[in-house]
């Protein structure tokens, strides 16, 4: 019997709830480390795609940030449910893309599922941990509460196919931000498959936008974009950090940079998940209200 030839999927971008090809028309290929043959075509995001993603994120911000904390938690939990359901698909894809063992891929995906559940639970609690009522020396009721910082750009670490993306997406999302993620350049497939999960998990269109492509071609534009409030970078490349802060100064972006977690630490809950990561995606608002008759 003749060997059946496989259908190779084209992985497209995720912008505003849609899966468009790159406006540039460009793509790149991901190769199997074992067979050295192409596994898939991936859209090579451009400056225009990035701008579209920011527009979509800005548009989605008011309604997403106005959702109740309970509702945001429910939606994160839904993402975990759908991911659990489709985990085999992601595992198989990871094995194909990275050449790793099934067991390792499974560990990564289940960590992601558990991490989503963990952050889902934080949705209506971090405000109580990080907010304060302030005993001012005058007749005012004064309190401080975290609010979303706004449109957040996340430069996802290349170390793993999925866990760095989920580990940054979840705290940013649960805090009420809308996101533009620049996926791992090395392992872009899992990011887009995960986008399909997001698209079917009650996450409103535009709340999460994922771009694949050559990072160097996009992060400069992300840093310069005047409608991005904050950039989150995981890595230790000083030239990247320098560029982000230099360009980001144009609109006083909050540039949050961490040179951790690294390697196996991504799977370690003590190292790769924290309510303080939610804290890094919020602004504090203080309100004074008079007390009197």
């Amino acid at each position, binding site marked *: 019997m003749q060997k059946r030839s496989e259908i190779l999927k084209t992985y497209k971008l995720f912008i505003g709830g849609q899966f468009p090809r790159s406006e540039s028309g460009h793509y790149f290929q991901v190769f199997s480390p074992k067979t050295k043959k192409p596994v898939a075509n991936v859209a090579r995001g451009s400056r225009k795609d990035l701008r579209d993603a920011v527009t979509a994120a800005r548009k989605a911000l008011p309604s997403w940030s106005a959702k109740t904390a309970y509702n945001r938690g429910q939606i994160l939990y839904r993402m975990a449910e759908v991911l659990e359901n489709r985990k085999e698909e992601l595992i198989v894809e990871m094995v194909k893309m990275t050449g790793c063992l099934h067991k390792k891929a499974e560990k990564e995906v289940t960590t992601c599922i558990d991490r989503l559940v963990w952050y889902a639970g934080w949705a209506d609690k971090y405000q109580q941990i990080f907010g304060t009522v302030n005993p001012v020396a005058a007749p005012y009721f004064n309190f401080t509460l975290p609010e979303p910082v706004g449109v957040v750009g996340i430069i996802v670490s290349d170390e793993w196919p999925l866990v760095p993306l989920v580990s940054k997406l979840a705290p940013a999302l649960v805090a009420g931000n809308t996101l533009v993620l620049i996926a791992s350049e090395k392992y872009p497939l899992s990011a887009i498959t995960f986008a399909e999960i997001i698209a079917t998990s009650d996450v409103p269109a535009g709340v999460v936008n994922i771009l694949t492509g050559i990072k160097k071609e996009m992060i400069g534009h992300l840093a310069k974009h005047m409608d991005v409030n904050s950039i989150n970078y995981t890595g230790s490349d000083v030239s990247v950090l320098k560029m982000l802060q230099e360009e980001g100064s144009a609109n006083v972006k909050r540039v949050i940079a961490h040179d951790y977690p690294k390697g196996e630490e991504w799977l370690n809950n003590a190292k790769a998940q924290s309510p*303080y990561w939610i804290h890094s995606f919020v602004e504090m608002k203080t309100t004074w209200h008079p007390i009197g008759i």
Partner: protein
Amino acid sequence: MTTLEKKVTRLEVVEPKQLNFGKKWDYAPAPEATDFVKIKPRYELFIGGKFVKPKSGNYFKSINPATEEVLTEVAEANEADVDAAVRAARNAYEKYWSKLAPAERAKYIFRIARQLQEKGREFAILETMDGGKPIKEARDGDIPLSVAHFFYYAGWADKLEYAFPGRKCRPLGVAGQVIPWNFPLLMAAWKLAPALACGNTVVLKPAETTPLTALHLAQIIQEADLPPGVVNIVTGFGKTGAALVKHPDINKIAFTGSTEVGKGIMKSIAGTGKKMTLELGGKAANIIFEDAPMDQAIEGIINGIYFNQGHVCCAGSRLFVQESVKDIVIRKLYDRIQTLRVGNPLDKNTDVGAINSREQLGKIKELVESGVQEGCKLHQSACELPKKGFWFPPTFFTGVAQSNRIAQEEIFGPVLSVLTFRTPEEAVEKANNTAYGLSAGVWTDKGSKIFKISSKLKAGVIWANTYNKFDPTSPFGGYKESGFGREGGLHGLLPYVKLVR
């Protein structure tokens, strides 16, 4: 318009209520005595616990902006001086301050607080002479708030383990702090108190037009026997600040000042890994709804923009009035600015003092001129201004469009832009239509409306039915281009610590 409608237009109703007391309610002069305040003829840098001559050999003059008299001359620190200060701070950090028991650290800060409290009046007079602000504001605002700030953070020094659940606090090292001229001592307190409480040592750079209270604070720090080098104060201009910011042995930069300079700082230290907080400019919206307690709101608007001559980053410089009450609000505002007493800052009855510097006065005049050029209607107090010194009368503009420069740019003077809105949604939309996001005010008697509007305003501090209130327990800081990081309260500790498990 029908005759009936004409009869009830608001203007006709308020006309008879116009305030006009003529000279009947004039106050006798009530100047604060200055004779017991000793201003030295010359001030040196405060480095390593000693007052030292600057290596630069240069001194610059500090003047009283209300009289243009030279008060004293002050050392100008160059790069070598800044380097000496940073070394002293590093040495103090390694040798004493980071090793000191937190409870002992607390006691030093308590000492500063108490000493400052004791010398409060002297500091108030100095602040007014050096900066031009009314003595009543320095006396009742700047100084007691500075004291309270030291008291508040002194108490935190040995309680940091309770501040951040699941984490311990570690100091960062040496903090470089650059502060503005609008609240010289208060900004020094906002910077020093949390930095010291968290175990850092400091090099502080006061503004060139207002270095005096910081240097007198240095005397208190010396008297309080703080280990030498824990606090160092280097005076000078922008160049001195830049040298401090760029110094390689600084771990943390805290800056309060203009957005333009803040952006420059962010750029200049990009990639260095220095921790940074910026408290920058603002163009705050003060929103007044038709159901607001009107007289209280007018007082709040006046306080919001004319407090400290409008030299306030969180000044309510854009007033949004609901159209239905526009006429009455403008009328009352106009009446009220006529009664503001502008003049000698040392007079206890003065409401609006001197503009801080000739340069700042020039900026204000330039922007006001742009408002006139762009077709906005100018309303000013008819007050008489002193012949000498730098002065600008309380001013507001009507007929302002959102795109006008006076509605977009920070004026940092006693100039208000009045705009209107019809619906709450429109008010929010217009209020947020700025690159800044430091503060905002909401005036309405309906509590639920306050919370609805305040939750939609993109600003770090919201005052409901009040304005320009400050407290050491209350975090302060901006959204968007007004900077990042918070000063005050529990949140004010975070910029000065590393969190570890």
